[in-house]
Structures are given as C-alpha cells and as structure tokens.
C-alpha cells in the first residue's frame, strides 16, 4: 500500500504542469461553488432573519381557527396551562412576544380608513424587531400608557399629528363592540408599504380592554434560542397542547409563498452549480484521458513485469484521489478566508434589487454565509465528481490488453 501511494505521489509530479492545472481546476470549482452556495445561503439567511423578525417570528401559537379566519373571536387565552408549557421549554425559547390584532376603522374628523390595530408589549416587540427605532416623531408607549402609535402612512392619510385624537371602531371579542378614542403619541415609519399604511399600535393591556378580551392574544410569537431546531420545538409544543384548541406554526408554515420563492431560487442556483461541476468535470476528464493515453505503454509494461491489474488501478485511483483532495483542500483553504471576509464586510448592493430589499426591511448587501456545511458539502461534491472521473483510468487499466499496450 505504501509503495502504491509513493508511486502515485511521484507520478503526480512527473508532469508538474498538468497536475497543477488539474489541481487548480478542482480548486477553482470548489471555490466557485462554495462562493455560490455561500451567497445563496447567506441571502436566504438574511431574508429569513428579516422576515422572521419583521413579521412572523420563529413560531406562533394560535387558536385552531384563527389561521383560516383571522378574527378576534379566535383570540386564544394565555391560560396557566400555556404559560407553564412555555416555562418548561425555557432553555429553547429566547422570549415570547404576545400580540392581539384586529382590523378596525380609524377616523379623525371626517376621514376614515381601515387599520390593523395591534396590541403589543413594547419591550418584547423591541427585542424582536426594534420597532421603537422606527419612530420618527413622538415616542413609543410603555405598558401602562394609553396612547396610540400610528404608522406614517396612516397618519398621512388621516392628516394626523402628534397630540391629535383618533377614534377606533370595530368588533370586540365574541360580538362585543370595540370603540374608543386615543391620543396619537408617536409616529412610526415602516419600509414595507403594507405595514406603513395600516399599522396602529396600542399597549397590549389597552388593546385587550378595547377588544374586551382580557388575557387573550391572537398570536403568541415565540423566538427560539440560537441553534434550536425550529421544527422540533414546534412539534414538541404542539404535542403538549390540546390540538382541539391550539395550533403551533413555524414561520415556514405561516409563509408558504416565501418558501416557494426560496425553493425556485435554490433550484436555479443548483442548476448553475451543476453546470459549473460539469464544465470542470469535463476539463479534468480531458486531462485524465490524455494521461491514460500517454501512459498506455507504461501500463502494459508494468502489468507484464508482474504488477497486478488491481494494484495498477489502485495507483491510478490514488493519483486522482490525491489530486482532487489537494484541489478541494486548497479550495477550502482559500474559499474559507475569502467567504469569511465577505461575510464580515458584505458587498453593498446598488441597483433595483437594493430598493426592493430596503422596502422589505432587508439590509441591501450581498450577504455571505460561512456555515461549515457549505464547505463540507461543496468540498465533498467536487471531490466525488473528481473521483467519479478517476474511475475512467481504473476501468481502462482493468480492461487493458497488455500485449497491445506494450507494443505501441
């Protein structure tokens, strides 16, 4: 075995240039696919983080019927049972964010429009999406205040200014009427128009009172600790809750459209990666075929003097393994610091996409990921492709006709 390895190793350096070209094509393939996957998963991560923190959170507990018909009638009670369950999962859950939401009519003077009244706990909400930092005028309320913070779009349409009063009118819990008036104590600006044109915040307790739903919330958002498997936590919670009343959703379940969009983009990128693999693969195959062709006679003689076919095949395989291993190793050695520096200093985006991203509340940069599995996965893929190509000389050697080969 050692002899075979020595032979393979020395064979590599017989044609230094060719070996270096092969090794570097493996290396570039590794770097390119690593970069490709790094940016895809970086962008995806960024997107997820933004969606998760701006809208759904990681996991939500809702009333069974709420998802189909998001009505205040299906607000769920934060019963001791639920609170106890959350406490049991303390080490997986970073924090929870309770919200009670319902559509109402908001009016000032003669102007009226539909708004989404959302009762929140400001300190919880800030942990999740730092909503207070979006305040442009006035300030965010505390739990015990009883004024409203309205989104800029709403304020513009109703010509609201700080200190003005709005009247909110809507349905309360189980047929009650929700009607009250609030002073506007703050104006908040959202990048996403949908939010900017509809949001009216109240302190949670105030909103619960307005909707006649004390101790109830429409969505209980759960933010998981880092590295917690969201699907598992969700399943875990669901299994402990009465599924006649409660449904636990992951953000993916709440946003099937976003997931579908990811999948499409992922498929496109995978295609690109495979095209890349194919290009590099054929390049390597070319050099290997030339190599085998040049060495036919040598192979014939080695077999003639008594080297077993299987050992000769092993030498050829080892040569390919060594080259691909070196290439992949070099690819990772260069790819990792490169991705790491891009991860630490993301490249800013400047075109239309940037505007779209800003609208979605995402920082407009090329985000790279340095998740170890990217390097492992791409390294292994490139390696296995190289190994598959290395089967060519092996098959050739196993079928070689010694007499013909050594006559050439």
């Amino acid at each position, binding site marked *: 075995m050692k*002899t075979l390895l020595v032979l393979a190793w020395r*064979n590599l*350096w017989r044609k230094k240039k060719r070996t270096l070209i092969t090794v570097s094509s493996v290396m570039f393939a590794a770097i390119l696919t690593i970069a490709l996957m790094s940016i895809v998963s970086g962008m995806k991560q960024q997107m997820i983080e933004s969606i998760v923190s701006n809208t759904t959170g990681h996991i939500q507990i809702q009333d069974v019927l709420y998802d189909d018909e998001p009505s205040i009638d299906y607000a769920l009670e934060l019963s001791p049972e639920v609170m106890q369950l959350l406490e049991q999962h303390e080490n997986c859950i970073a924090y929870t964010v309770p919200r009670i939401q319902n559509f109402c009519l908001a009016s000032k003077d003669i102007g009226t429009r539909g708004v989404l009244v959302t009762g929140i706990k400001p300190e919880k909400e800030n942990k999740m999406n730092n909503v207070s930092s979006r305040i442009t005028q006035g300030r965010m309320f505390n739990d015990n205040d009883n004024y409203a913070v309205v989104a800029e779009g709403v304020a513009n349409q109703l010509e609201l200014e700080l200190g003005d009063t709005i009247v909110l009118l809507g349905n309360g819990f189980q047929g009650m009427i929700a009607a009250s008036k609030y002073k506007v104590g703050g104006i908040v600006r959202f990048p996403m128009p949908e939010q900017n044109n509809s949001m009216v915040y109240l302190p949670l307790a105030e909103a619960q009172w307005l909707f006649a739903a004390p101790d109830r919330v429409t969505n209980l958002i759960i933010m998981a600790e880092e590295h917690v498997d969201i699907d598992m936590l969700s399943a875990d919670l669901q299994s402990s809750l009465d599924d006649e009343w409660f449904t636990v959703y992951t953000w993916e379940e709440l946003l099937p459209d976003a997931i579908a969009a990811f999948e499409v983009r992922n498929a496109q990128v995978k295609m690109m990666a495979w095209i890349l693999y194919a290009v590099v693969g054929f390049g390597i195959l070319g050099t290997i075929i030339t190599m085998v062709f040049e060495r036919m006679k040598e192979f014939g003689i*080695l077999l*003639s*003097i008594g080297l077993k076919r299987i050992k000769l095949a092993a030498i050829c395989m080892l040569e390919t393994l060594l080259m691909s291993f070196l290439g992949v190793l070099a690819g990772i050695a260069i790819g990792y610091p490169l991705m790491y520096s891009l991860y630490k200093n993301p490249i800013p985006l400047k075109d239309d996409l940037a505007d779209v991203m800003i609208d979605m509340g995402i920082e407009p940069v090329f985000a790279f990921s340095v998740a170890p599995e990217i390097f492992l996965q791409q390294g292994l893929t490139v390696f296995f492709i190289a190994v598959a190509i290395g089967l060519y000389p092996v098959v050739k050697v196993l079928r070689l006709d010694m007499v013909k080969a*050594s*006559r050439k």
Partner: protein
Amino acid sequence: MKTVIETKNLVKVYNGGVAPVKAVNNVNIKFNEGEFTAIVGPSGSGKTTFLNLIGGLDKPTDGEIFIENVDISKLKERKLFDFRLKNIGFVFQSYNLIPVLTAKENVSFIMLLQKMKSNEMNKRAEELLQAVGLGDKMDVRPSKLSGGQQQRVAVARALASKPKFILADEPTANLDTQSALNLLDIMARLNKEENITLLFSTHDQRVIDRARRVVTLIDGAVSEDVNK
C-alpha cells in the same frame, strides 16, 4: 540437461487485418537450463509474438507451452500473473523502467511485489546493480541514465526475482553499438556465472555472435536452429 521451456505445435493467429496472419506457425522447440539463445528473423517473422507466448503475456491460438512442467497456456489470468512474477524476467525494447523510481527502486520493485523482506531486498538490488556495472547509479532516476544503462537496470530487475529464465525482446534495438555489445556481454556473463537461462530476440547482426544458440524464424516457423 533440464528442459526449462518446451512448446508443442504452438500456433498464434491474428485476425486483425484483411486476412488472418499466422504469426507463430506450428513451433516445436525446447530450451534447456543455462542456454543463451538468440531468436532472429526478419521483421514480422513472429519473434515478439513467440516471446510473448512463452512469457505468458499472450495466449496461443493452439498448442501447448510448458515451463518446467506447467502448461501455462492453460493457466487463468490470476495464476498466470503470479507465475510470471515468480518465474519469468522481462526486458523490453524500450520504456522498460518505471520513470518515477530510482534504479535501485526499479530493481527492488519486483521483489517488493513478491513481498520480500526489505533488508534482503536492498542487499540483492545493490548486488544486481553492481553486477551490471551500475553500482554508482543506484539512486538515479531512469531519465538521467543512458539507454544502455537503462537496459542494464532492466536486466538487473529481470534477475531480481530469481526467475527460471529471462526474455528480452530486442533489448539492443535502441542502443548504439558499444552499449549494445556491453549489454550482451553482461548478459553473457550472467548466463555463464549464474547459469541463468536467457532468450533474446534481435535482428541486430552485431550481437547475434554473443549467443550460443541461434534460432531463426521465418513467417512464424523455425527455419534454422544452430548450436555453437
């Protein structure tokens, strides 16, 4: 005297071209232990084919080949590999050596394949290289050796496994006269001193005289067999 190689009605037909070629045509011949034989004949007369057959590199179309008492034409490929490795040494016209190994490593290679102990192997490799006059080139790679030196390493390698006989197909074809004679002298000496059986093919008039028996092939058949 002991017979090392014996062929009976040996035939090899190639069906490659327009018409089938009888490259070896009904050869019945014996080679005894310690003989030093030249196989001669014009180009295409079947010298290489004949040597490949008795070396077990190629299968005969018909007939039998006995190496001592084993009919190698009936051996399966795996058995044949082992048989060759243990019993037959080869020297080829060119590209004889493994380019990435030094002279000594090339000679050791066969012994390594035979799983010989390393100190024994080293000692023998050194002795053999001394014997072919390359004691000072042990650690040199083939590309740094002249053609004649390379062929001498090949002879040393062929001897390494202590084979029953050595086959050399035109070992001097790529050599200048001086190197060719030099190589043959070394082979003749080894033949005499170690009683090793040697067969070589050639159409090189210069070196035929070194052999003690000359077998002439014409169109695959033995046309003359002279013992000197």
